[in-house]
């Protein structure tokens, strides 16, 4: 009898330890708290507003956050490398605007036009990488300068007037406006595909690990023979390229390319990434976390409309909720 008891006792402990192991694994999962916070906010909104928890609202939110989610992937990479990229918004604008201008005024094939737009974005990333990685100038200033230059080009190319491309080929516009099975926007699908691939790549690929090495300790990385210059170059190119893709998708969605496209993007994506656990000092960050950061911000924005909060209070409430959310997130990770 005693033996039996002991036996079952042992099993219990074992089961217990497995359970606690799983629990630990889950608790150690960096993104858990932010997911919980998002769920809590979501639950609150579902109770407070009958319209929040609906397929259509989620579709709307997903559409709203898809381009930022694409761009935040690049931003995450940049932050992990220990840098910052303020130029994403204006690069996003540039790619879209150039594509629109080439198609509309110069009658280029839309695919060719989009490729050139993307190439222009990549070129800006190359410039950023050149000055930051090779020359060694401060990333904040370099990307602020390229931000200004690209935004300038956005004005020059549009001449201040939004370029209208509503009549672009339907296949192209489908990228921004299409719906799959009448429920999943193509844009959201594209975002999800990019996100899943890059989340996996960031965790698994040896090239992406190099970005972590550099951000964690550039000196150690260089001493170990990692070519920090090239890796940084790559990081800024990826960031710009993703911004470029987002820019092209944006014109496909709206059918218009104004010079101001992407003005709030840099702040939005930096915040999203930092909320999601990326460190401004480098070495830390995940794609999942960053996208969750963007989701959190969009939930707050959506909630404000759902709860019919007055325009004047919008920014106050956003700030306050953000403060509470990140403080909770921080406190829950403090010991780890």
């Amino acid at each position, binding site marked *: 009898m005693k033996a039996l008891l002991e036996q079952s006792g042992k099993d219990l402990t074992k089961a217990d330890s497995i359970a606690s192991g799983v629990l630990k694994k889950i608790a150690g999962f960096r993104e858990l708290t932010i997911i919980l916070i998002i769920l809590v906010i979501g639950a609150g909104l579902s109770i407070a507003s009958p319209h929040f928890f609906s397929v259509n609202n989620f579709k709307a939110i997903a559409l709203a956050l898809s381009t930022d989610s694409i761009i935040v992937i690049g931003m995450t990479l940049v932050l992990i490398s220990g840098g910052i990229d303020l130029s994403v918004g204006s690069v996003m604008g540039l790619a879209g605007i150039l594509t629109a201008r080439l198609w509309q005024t110069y009658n280029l094939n839309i695919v060719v036009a989009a490729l050139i737009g993307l190439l222009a974005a990549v070129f800006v990333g190359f410039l950023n990488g050149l000055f930051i990685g090779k020359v060694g100038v401060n990333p904040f200033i370099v990307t602020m300068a390229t931000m200004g230059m690209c935004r300038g080009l956005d004005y020059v190319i549009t001449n201040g007037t939004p370029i209208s491309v509503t009549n672009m080929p339907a296949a192209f516009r489908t990228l921004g406006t299409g719906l799959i099975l009448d429920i999943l926007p193509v844009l959201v699908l594209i975002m999800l595909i990019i996100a899943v691939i890059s989340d996996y790549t960031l965790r698994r690929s040896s090239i992406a690990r190099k970005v*972590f090495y550099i951000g964690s300790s550039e000196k*150690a990385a260089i001493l*170990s023979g*990692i070519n920090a210059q090239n890796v940084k170059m790559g990081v800024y190119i990826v960031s710009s390229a993703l911004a470029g893709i987002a820019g092209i998708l944006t014109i496909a969605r709206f059918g218009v390319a104004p010079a101001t496209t992407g003005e709030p993007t840099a702040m939005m994506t930096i915040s999203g990434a930092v909320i999601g656990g990326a460190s401004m000092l480098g*070495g830390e960050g995940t794609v999942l976390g960053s996208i969750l950061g963007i989701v959190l911000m969009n939930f707050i924005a959506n909630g404000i409309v759902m709860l019919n909060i007055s325009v004047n209070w919008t920014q106050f409430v956003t700030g306050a909720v953000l403060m509470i959310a990140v403080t909770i997130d921080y406190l829950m990770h403090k010991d780890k």
Partner: protein
Amino acid sequence: MEQKTILSVKGINKSYPGTKALTDVHFDLRQGEVHALIGENGAGKSTLMNIVGGVIKPDSGQIMLNCKEVKFHSPKDAQDAGIGFVHQEIALCPHMTVAENIYMGRIKGNILSMLDFSELNRKAGEILSLFKTGITPQTIVRKLTVADQQVVEIVKALSLDCKILVLDEPTSSLTESETEALFVTIANLKARGISILYISHKMSEIFRICDSITILRDGHFIDSLKVKEISPEIVISKMVGRNITNLYPPKSTKVTEKIIEVRNLTRKGVFNNISFEISKGEILGIAGLVGSKRTEVARAVCGIDQVDSGEVHFEGEKVHFKSYRDAIKRGIAYLTEDRKIEGLFLNLSIKKNITASCLEKVSKFKIINAGAEKNWANSFSEKLRIKLYNVNQKASSLSGGNQQKIVIAKWLSINPKLIFMDEPTRGIDVGAKSEIHDMLRKLSDEGIGIVIISSELPEIIGMCDRVIVMSEGRITGVLDAKDLSEEHIMTYAASSQEHGFAG
């Protein structure tokens, strides 16, 4: 049998603003030999090795590898040429796992560049097992102690498939057992024909494992010698330019009143029931293996970490330090074992580093008197013989040993009544070490309480009047000066039960 020369450097010069680090230095390294590079702090050893390792470029000079001249533009070039390097300053990525650090620089995935982490961890675990430490490949490096990080550094270099291995003070934070493991590995490498360049300030090590020695002084080549044909005394005199006879100062003569009494200090899960006392005029040693929680005890007494129970009586009065600041105000200081992260402000000047804890001493009405601060820093750098160009230099531009001296200067600056020194002479050359030891004895004679935590048993034995030995967070033995010997200490350090000293 004369082996062939694998590496030969000639006419190397290197200047920094204000300092000529190397002047016309040359030496030859033969295949399969362990070649020591020695010299005082700031003699230029690390600079020379950094040139060999492609980290910095010489102003002039040649590096011949297998009789062919090579020019390295980056550490990668040197690595590709078969040169592995353990740097004096730990250069790991703190956010990443041990395994990832070990394979940093050679990390390669499959065709899609995807990594197999379990394979990576397995391979890392294999090499790590050479050192019998508790380090697991999945641990995040940030969470390791300096000692463990040093092990990782070494393992990382060993895992390289190199022809020449440069070890710049690899044992400065290792304990005996890890040092032994390293020596076994070095012997294996040597047997495989790999050449090793070995920098250390520990003569015993050099005479145990090295075949030849190159001596540098003030950036000049002094001599290259066969170990078999020479004695430590001669090496030291060639190195410092004078004779050093008495390595350790005489022991305490009179012990007066009690400074501090620690009773039953406990921090759950870390250490238990720690009791000891220190009196004026004596130097107390704390010995133990890495992980015996010596550091944690010292930090707790200083109020850096909080304890669960126990009492501290300082100057006859029960004290409870809510923070380290309180302890400093009372004149209690802790000199950290991790100078790079916890001790130094690398991008600030030497001057600012030295005065960090005693600003009030050089300022009036909260305004710092620039002259006074400079004088203060100068006087300490003279006292500790810090090799510098001027005190406005950044701390990062000093040699490792001189950086350690700055941290010591910072704490001596506050005129402490009691100071815990965690590995105080790590990386410090023999000459300076004996000066620091003399100084500690003098301070102790003046009535300052001194506690030395050291993994270097000769230092503990040579310096301390009383030693407590710790193991797994408990005091396992207390030894008086007359009973001090390596065997006794090691017995207690390895035991898990409390002993009184019998015999």
